[in-house]
């Protein structure tokens, strides 16, 4: 495997092998992953990152195939990260999203990567965010992240995507489902796919009725669109709406939202750094076992130990 700086240079030059290697490095979370992110970070921020989420079988992968085609017709390059679940029992995964997009695999303007969650919760993988940065730094105009088939509370995608599209299919639930918390709250755009089916309009109405219950005046009102992924019907309209949302973000909200996102990323990075430095220190001092034993014997709870360790490390101020 070439040196990490070589991979980083390859990514910035758009070299496909380097992009693939970079994503593997991030997935395996090797020591070099951070160096890699650091070297490509200055070149990120140009791509529009779109998240697609929705229940299993709603047609996410097939719709993405059509979305990519539409963007390619408009001269845009596209990167895709398609996430599927890792088995909690064996650690293995069957990654089948790209089957629906396989005709595009030889298009040099398209890069598709399948990713297993590796037991990360929330509908994406731990590596998804940084893998999206790799595709961004490699010059892709559009980066699409397909989540695992999401039920109700897999909402991590909003930490990665600028525009989140939530896809439903007719017949998956009534208006009560539409009122529930969770993924219904994260959509910038709603799509009712399989719109050629009989009760598609009912699904659209249920979602619209739910949206009307919002009593807060919002600057962006999520539109509800209909698509038929098999034929591509409704896809150009979806692309238009995604574009409108991007403009909206740029004009009014981007600074604030990016600020929040930057803060969230910083918090996450601090958490990881602090945790690993304390754990490493305990290991070096041979004290880790002692604390673990205390937890197992119910003599101390983890939060109290954490507080004690933080106080020791940073003084009483924490």
């Amino acid at each position, binding site marked *: *495997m070439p040196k990490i700086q070589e991979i980083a240079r390859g990514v910035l030059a758009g070299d*496909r*092998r380097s*992009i*693939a*290697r970079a*994503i*593997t490095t991030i*997935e*395996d*979370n*090797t*020591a070099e992953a951070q160096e890699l992110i650091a070297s490509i970070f200055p070149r990120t921020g140009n791509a529009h990152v779109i998240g697609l989420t929705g229940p299993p079988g709603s047609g996410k992968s097939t719709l993405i195939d059509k979305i990519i085609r539409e963007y390619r017709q408009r001269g845009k390059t596209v990167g895709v990260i398609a996430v599927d679940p*890792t*088995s909690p029992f*064996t*650690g*293995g*995964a*069957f*990654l*089948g999203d*790209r*089957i629906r997009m*396989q005709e595009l*695999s*030889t298009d040099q303007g398209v*890069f*598709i*990567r*399948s990713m*297993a969650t*590796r037991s990360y919760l929330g509908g994406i993988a731990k590596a998804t965010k940084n893998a999206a940065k790799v595709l961004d730094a490699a010059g892709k105009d559009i980066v699409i992240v397909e989540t695992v088939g999401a039920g109700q509370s897999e909402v991590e995608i909003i930490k990665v995507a600028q525009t989140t599209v939530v896809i439903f299919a007719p017949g998956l639930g009534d208006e009560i489902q539409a009122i529930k918390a969770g993924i219904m709250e994260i959509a910038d755009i709603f799509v009712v796919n399989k719109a050629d089916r009989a009760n598609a309009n009912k699904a659209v109405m249920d979602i619209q009725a739910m949206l009307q219950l919002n009593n807060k005046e919002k600057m962006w009102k999520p539109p509800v669109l209909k698509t038929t992924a098999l034929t591509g019907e409704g896809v150009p309209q979806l692309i238009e709406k995604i574009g409108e949302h991007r403009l909206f973000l740029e004009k009014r909200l981007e600074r604030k939202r990016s600020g929040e996102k930057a803060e969230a990323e910083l918090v996450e990075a601090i958490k*990881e750094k602090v945790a*690993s430095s304390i754990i490493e220190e305990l290991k070096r001092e041979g004290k880790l076992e002692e604390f673990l034993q205390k937890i197992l014997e119910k003599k101390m709870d983890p939060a109290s130990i954490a507080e004690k360790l933080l106080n020791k490390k940073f003084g009483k101020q924490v």
Partner: protein
Amino acid sequence: MQNRKKIRVLIAKPGLDSHDRGAKIIARALRDAGMEVIYTGLKQTPEQIVETALQEDVDVIGLSILSGAHKTLFPIIIDLLKQKGLTDVLVVAGGIIPEEDIPGMKKLGIKEIFGPGTRTDKIVQFVFENVPKRT
């Protein structure tokens, strides 16, 4: 904080036969052995298979073919892999490949051929033992 490295496998169906029951059984067995398995779907060209292997950065490619076109398609695939610099990928094959063709296929660079009736645990073990070490 390091994850254990995962073995990534591409199960690919070159050629025009539409029988992927075997391919799916192998995919399932490798999945259950803890690997990340990507399946291409049916009727893939050599270009599609190699490009997918590259994008997915796989350690192993399993080719499943029952149409009899292996003598035409496998050399193209191996050639493309070399062209794209994917020389450290373990390539194995299965399906209907006549006995007399096997030496030629192996000479080409296909590490092992698994015919009908091969036990899945044998294939899993072979992959574990022969997968190139990632550094």
